[in-house]
């Protein structure tokens, strides 16, 4: 052991200027610094619990959240170990983009749906258990027999900032492998594009085309008028009245009209007339009877309306086939 420490001291002594500049992730004897040890013992249990969360969570989104927690904690550990670039990129790429895409899909299944526990393959659960235990044994064997030599070379690697060091490795030593992986990824993206490409059989109908078609077909262009709203009654089943006092059929939702659940607009209109007449009479000190005799309330009379005059009701309610100014009926 003393020989090891001595060797490490020699190594550290060879790089006098670097020692002060670099992360104190490991000291010369290969032990972690206090800061890193504290961080590790805080983060490690969180990560282990989160990993179990991935295994045992009933909801897919909870499992995804556990993975995110593990990833972010792992990023913290990377940063303390001097791999600043790796740590941050881990969060940007894996947590920020890839898990977000996962979540995008998972969210669409909704909150209340839990994983189905029905086996789709016979004996799936037992095969899973066996494979899991096998993996555990292998991992335990590997970790148990692994030797932990004193880490060396971190100082030299990170000499001019961590990103520069990584750039040298990726774009210098391993540039060919990097290019190959890049080509592979581009091919994969292209393949996905080709597979999901669908030939358009008909001309595309955009917003513009739909609007043009609507004008050409002579449909009403504005939204449908709202149903009648009265102080007494503001339900969906009462038609609104146009300025001539006629009910606008189309202001009642089509479903209600089809079912025959439409209320009688004339009744409500008459009530309002009565109320208005009463108010005027009260203000002028006359009785309703006098009012009625002198000045009969306007009666809705569509037939009496002058021909060719604009019918606001028509414009709102859509084109009537019998109207003379409509091209639709010819």
């Amino acid at each position, binding site marked *: 052991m003393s020989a090891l420490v001595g060797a490490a001291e020699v190594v550290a002594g060879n790089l006098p200027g670097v020692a002060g500049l670099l992360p104190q992730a490991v000291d010369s004897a290969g032990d972690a610094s206090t800061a890193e040890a504290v961080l590790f013992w805080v983060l490690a249990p969180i990560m282990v619990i989160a990993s179990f969360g991935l295994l045992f969570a009933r909801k897919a989104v909870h499992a995804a959240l556990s993975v995110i927690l593990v990833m972010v904690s792992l990023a913290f550990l990377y940063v303390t170990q001097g791999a600043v670039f790796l740590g941050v990129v881990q969060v940007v790429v894996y947590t920020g983009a890839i898990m977000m895409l996962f979540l995008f899909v998972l*969210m669409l299944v909704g909150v209340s749906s839990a994983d189905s526990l029905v086996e789709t393959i016979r004996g799936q659960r037992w095969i899973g258990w066996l494979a899991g235990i096998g993996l555990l044994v292998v991992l335990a064997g590997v970790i148990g027999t692994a030797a932990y030599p004193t880490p060396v070379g971190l100082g030299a690697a990170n000499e001019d900032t961590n990103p520069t060091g990584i750039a040298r490795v990726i774009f210098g030593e391993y540039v060919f492998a990097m290019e190959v992986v890049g080509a592979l990824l581009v091919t994969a993206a292209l393949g996905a594009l080709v597979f999901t490409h669908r030939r358009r059989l008909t001309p595309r109908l955009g917003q513009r085309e739909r609007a043009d078609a609507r004008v050409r077909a002579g449909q009403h262009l504005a939204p449908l008028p709202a149903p009648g709203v009265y102080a007494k009654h503001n339900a969906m089943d009462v038609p609104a009245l146009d300025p001539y006092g006629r009910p606008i059929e189309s202001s009642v939702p089509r479903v209600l009209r089809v079912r025959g659940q439409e209320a009688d607009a004339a009744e409500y209109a008459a009530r309002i007339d009565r109320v208005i007449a009463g108010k005027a009479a009260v203000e002028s000190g006359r009785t309703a009877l006098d009012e009625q005799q002198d000045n009969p309330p306007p009666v809705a009379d569509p037939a009496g309306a002058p021909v060719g005059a604009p019918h606001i009701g028509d414009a709102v309610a859509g084109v009537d086939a019998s109207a003379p100014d409509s091209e639709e009926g010819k």
Partner: protein
Amino acid sequence: MHSVLAAGLVTATEGSTAADFSNDTWWIWLIKSVGILIFLLTSVLIAIWFERKVVARMQVRPGPNVHGPFGLLQSLADAMKLLFKEDMTVKAADKVVYIVAPLIAVFCSLLTFAVIPLGPTVNMFGVETPLQLTDFPVAVLYILACASVGVYGIVLGGWSSNSTYPLLGAVRSTAQVISYELAMGMSLVSVFILAGSMSTSEIVSSQTQLWWFLPLLPAFLIYIVSMVGETNRLPFDLPEAEGELVSGYMTEYSSMKFAWFFLAEYINMLNVSAVATTLFLGGWRAPFLPADSFLQQGYWPVLWFLVKLWALMFFFVWVRGSVLRFRYDQFMKLGWKVLIPAALTWLVMVAVVQGLRQFPEFADLELRTILFGIAGVVIVGVVISLLIPEKKPTPAPTTPRVLDAFADGYPVPPLPGQVLPPSPRRARVTAGAPADESAATADTTTDPKEVHGG
């Protein structure tokens, strides 16, 4: 834990950034952290008042003017009101995620200002220290990381509410962030290439001569557009579009939890403005002043930083007051078909120029000249492309009155008022039973008048 991490970072990076944090003690960190928190929270209060006031002026009305001088205490009153409102938790919600989501949004938004340089090295109670909490070689990537984790607040809040509108808001937000962060990241990379660093203090010190927004104008414009998209502000506020989704991901939130989302949104506005200031607008440097002027030293630069920050905030409000909300497909098209290709092209051009300058033949070429040349070419190209007359759209075919069941790609049944084309099978049927013929022909000649509302 955070201070432990900060300690690790500071020791990790001494000498690799322009700012020197070697004199910092724990109480300096404490002062800076608390200072940043107070700055952000008060800025949010002011930002809300500012936004309401400016929008009001743009709409020719006075805006809040009752509480306090110029209505300055209005946002404080609103905050108090929010605090005292009933804190509801939706029964069907996923409780833990529902409560954690606003926390994620706020905490992540608070992290960004840790690496924003507010000024040069100052004397803080006898300690020489930069006006910046910390810095490290990948500080700008760290900002992107915080932003991308912050979006989980929005996404999870929308999902856990177990309600339709919030879920739609969350889904929109996911798609929005993934598409706009790409353009944003790539526009920032051209700054990294020129500044030769990803540390914020290095980037600010690289802008002594020239602020990057001029030579990197295309990148700056792309960043400005994507920063609005990233913060869910009009015209890109699709995750919370009032007219479509009630309030999007925050629909089921009330009281303090709602206030936290609100806080996060405004802090994020400050964050992206601060990043634009630092990376493109020279950070804390004043324009047209020599670097050794007293206005460029001490605490004065904080003023220039704030002026730039609030100019960008004004831009946010201005855009909100004058631009309509995008339709969702137009928004996605802008992101994927315009911003990302433009950012990629620009990035390649900057990289080529920077690569050429490594050769001795081009070493004496001034970077500024080259970049201005390229920016000029790009702008001329854009102007020319605007002058080219648009190709006349082919007249759309007249829509048949007889329903074309495959018009939209999928077979659909006829709606009321539409008729199906005569079936080829009908001919055979009528041949077999001539009595039905009159009925069949009557059917096809029916006037296909659109039934109203159908």
